[in-house]
């Protein structure tokens, strides 16, 4: 049920983001979606790609600090209040969202959101119990 995401530490320096994407491109890695969180000093680039291990390998080879995290992809009805509903469910069970971002492609009538929870397993149980559809990694990598 998990989706593998890689996170890369990037200093807020000119051209760094371009370099990361160029390294991935040259290695034939396809970026499925991404989010960039930043502070004045540094940023954390989070990526879901079609080949996590390859992406990790080439970036590490080039001296980047890379880590792998398990995130959860959830289908959310693409209508007003769709996101609010899911957050309410999580809130009711005391599950904390560390961060989240949208997947770029839709899945049928639904949008896909990527979540990082403080308690991943508990979140999955809660969401499936409320009939939310959780997408397996393989779906996303090849979407």
């Amino acid at each position, binding site marked *: 049920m998990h989706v593998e995401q890689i996170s890369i*530490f990037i200093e807020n320096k000119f051209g760094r983001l371009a370099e990361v994407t160029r390294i991935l491109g040259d290695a034939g890695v396809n970026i499925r979606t991404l989010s960039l969180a930043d502070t004045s000093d540094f940023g954390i680039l989070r990526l879901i790609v079609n080949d996590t291990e390859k992406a990790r390998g080439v970036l590490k080879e080039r001296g*980047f600090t*890379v*880590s792998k995290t398990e995130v959860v992809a959830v289908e959310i009805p693409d209508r007003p209040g769709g996101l609010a509903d899911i957050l309410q469910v999580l809130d009711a069970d005391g599950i904390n969202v560390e961060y989240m971002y949208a997947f770029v492609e839709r899945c049928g009538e639904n949008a896909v959101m990527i979540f990082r929870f403080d308690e991943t397993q508990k979140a999955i149980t809660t969401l499936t119990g409320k009939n939310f559809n959780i997408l397996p990694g393989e779906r996303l990598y090849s979407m």
Partner: protein
Amino acid sequence: MFFNEEFETLPREALEALQLKRLKSMVARVEKSVPFYKEALAKAGVASDSIKSLADLQRLPFTYKQDMRDSYPYNLFAVPMEDIVRIHASSGTTGKPTVVGYTKKDIETWSELMARSFVAAGVHKGDIIHNSYGYGLFTGGLGAHYGAERLGASVIPMSGGNTKKQIMIMQDFGSTVLTCTPSYSLFMAEAAKEEGIDFRDLKLRVGIFGAEPWSEEMRRDIETKLNLSAVDIYGLSEIMGPGVAIECCEAKKGLHVWEDHFIPEIINPETCEVLPEGQMGELVITTITKEGIPLIRYRTRDITSITYEPCACGRTHARIARMSGRSDDMLIIRGVNVFPSQIEAILMGVEGVEPHYVLIVERKDNLDTLEVQVEVGENIFSDEIKHLQALSAKIEKQIKEMLGVTCRVRLVEPKSITRSEGKAKRVIDNRNKA
């Protein structure tokens, strides 16, 4: 104006004769009373009675800060403890502090040299000296205090900190002389401005600033903002405290070393050879009158040059140039001594942190700033910003607690800190760059 005209203007020949006499007597004393020196002199093959001229000084062994640490606390003292009336110590930020002891006569000498320094700076009896050097184990506060009393001026023992009160006292008490670190003087002026007080409206006339490196540009800035004449003072607790050397207000071109009490030399810190007048090197000082803890050829690690050219003020004592750096990697940040090795020790204590770091020192708004760049390896990396921010906050807090210095930790990418093949360059000091 002189405090002790006879000695301050002693002709060179007489001054050197006095130095030789005092040097011989000091070496004879430590040879007898300090086992460390007895051994060091024997090892160097110099007996005190073989000293015939000042040139023989070069045959004497050096004394290092480490020797003082190894002698902690009292093993370098040359007199019994019952003759010691005061004890001071350095901050001891790299381990045990260096301890110095003064006899009654040492305190009198120090007071006189500080009084001489005050007069050289343009201070006189009747002045109200606002002393913002720290009181305590640090020599600044009490050194300036006793000198001010010896001169017969009125001294306000403020010590450091509590800036608002400092400003109020300066205004209300009519302080005419300010003694503190140069950066603190500007900090006070800025703080006063925020309160709607212009330092130029105060009665300050002379500022005696030391304990940290500063530049000619900073002097101009201080003189404009505080409307006073600013002079540089030099000293170190190992040798005495403040007042080892001072600029005269007449020339403000180099700091007169009180040569009837200290013999300065400039050496090449690598080869240890004594350098001629005008060449930059490490300042080495021999104390020739100190009783409590006399030091032979103490390696100050401060980089300067020396001149024996006559000075406009009439003093015959040699002048050293404004300190331009250190021959070791010690940093002075807002008056606090910081060695990169200390920061390294703190970083190594943080789990997962790798030993690649660099310290960047700048001067912003007249205050020193320290940035510690730390490489983020996989061990400490988290995909959540808050964890990384907590990590930098933790390091900042530890550095503040252990070294007393406020810094900013900046996380950087691995390998972004230049690796060098020899000695790692741990410090980038941008303070003296215009």
